[in-house]
């Protein structure tokens, strides 16, 4: 999965998500999740890391199970769950909602854990024709993220040193971070312009992201074969 072109991988997995959303089938959702988890592990991600990431997902899935179970659309309503599900029981609706959470999270993590961030932006720029000003702006902002995290920790430590307790997303913490962020954005844009970056002049790429045969196979499988199978089965 790591060697696939990020833009093609994105489109492929997005197509799978859309098919699952239309299908509303717990079996398909479960199959998608198991396959995603297997591919993540095969790609070298530690099982413990994956399990830790799936912990909040499991809680969200449990919540959706109870919501689906207790609040199924009644068959007398204009919109009936019975029209969309293979079974009409509350239990099936609950399981469908819960399995959907696992399936989407599995596909999301499959992309996030097996994709290089920089390569992803470069691939989006080339394959999706993302304007370079956004691509480089995104990369520049992404580069500033560690500074923001550090600034956040420093502000939090300063409050703690004064004996003041603050919530993780307290305005008292976010206000200085916003001020700093605006300053960084100014400095970044000046630095980029001073180094010759222009939003209009076209740039070349030393190692452009290419689409290989394996990417086409993945695209055909996810964007053509899977939707066709979903209609036929």
């Amino acid at each position, binding site marked *: 999965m790591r060697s696939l072109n990020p833009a093609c991988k*994105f489109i492929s*997995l*997005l197509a799978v*998500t*859309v098919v699952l*959303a239309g299908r*509303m089938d717990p079996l398909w959702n479960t199959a998608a999740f198991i396959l995603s988890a297997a591919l993540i592990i095969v790609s070298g991600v530690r099982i413990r890391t994956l399990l830790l*990431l799936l912990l*909040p*997902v499991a*809680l*969200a899935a*449990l*919540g*959706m199970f*109870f*919501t*689906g*179970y*207790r*609040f*199924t*659309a009644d068959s007398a*309503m204009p*919109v009936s*769950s019975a029209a*969309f*599900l293979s079974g009409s029981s509350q239990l099936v*609706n609950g399981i469908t909602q819960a399995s*959907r959470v696992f399936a*989407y*999270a599995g596909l*999301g*993590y499959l992309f*996030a854990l097996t994709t290089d961030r920089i390569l992803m932006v470069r691939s989006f720029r080339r394959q999706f024709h993302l304007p370079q*000003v956004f691509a480089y*702006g*995104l990369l*520049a*902002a992404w580069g*500033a993220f560690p500074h*923001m*995290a550090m600034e*956040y920790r420093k502000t939090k430590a300063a409050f703690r040193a004064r004996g003041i307790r603050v919530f*993780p*997303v307290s*305005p008292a913490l*976010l*206000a200085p971070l*916003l*001020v700093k*962020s*605006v*300053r960084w*954005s*100014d400095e970044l844009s000046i630095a*980029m*312009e001073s180094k010759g970056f*222009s*939003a209009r002049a076209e740039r070349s790429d030393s190692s452009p992201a290419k689409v290989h045969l394996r990417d086409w196979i993945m695209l055909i499988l996810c964007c053509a074969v899977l939707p066709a199978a979903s209609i036929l089965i």
Partner: protein
Amino acid sequence: MEQERKAWELKDVIMMAILGVVFAAVYMAVFQGGLVISTALTPFGLANFGFEIIYGIWFMAATLSAYIIRKPGVALITEMLASAIELLMGNSGGLTVVLTGFIQGLGAEAVFAAFRYRRWDMLSMSLGGMASAVLIFCYELYYLNYITLDPALLAGQLLVRFISAVLFSGIICKLAGDGLARTGVVRNYAIGASADIVKIYDEEE
């Protein structure tokens, strides 16, 4: 002259991207908070409300950046950049986070466009957030299979989402934007032109 004033500069794009990063980090942080509330409401089947209460936070990047920069397209692009950053960070909601960002940004952008990008106040920002809430809710009926849930529950969810949108993307973003303007750090943007600057924030001070 008007065309030149509305054209995007590099500093605008970097500002949008940086705000995207800040709010993507906030989204990730509040997701954990939402999960705690959601888990507490799980036995009652009301887990969705745990996230509905804070849903307005997801519209903040769009309204705040538009309020500061005040140019066409800013709300839409900032929301998309924030969602792209969320994708980079690893998002449990799945790959459609970028599509979600597009839909949410489109709602806010439509309202600012309806005001011809001339009205920048709590009303336009609140309506922007509410429009985002409506559009994303329609999308979730399909994508999150909400169509199979009780319509009364869905109506309740939408009501709470509206309140959250007004609170976070309207009231708090307006206050945050005005607060930033007063510090002087956004004096080079449209919001700075009309701001009553009380302190020029300086790193060296």
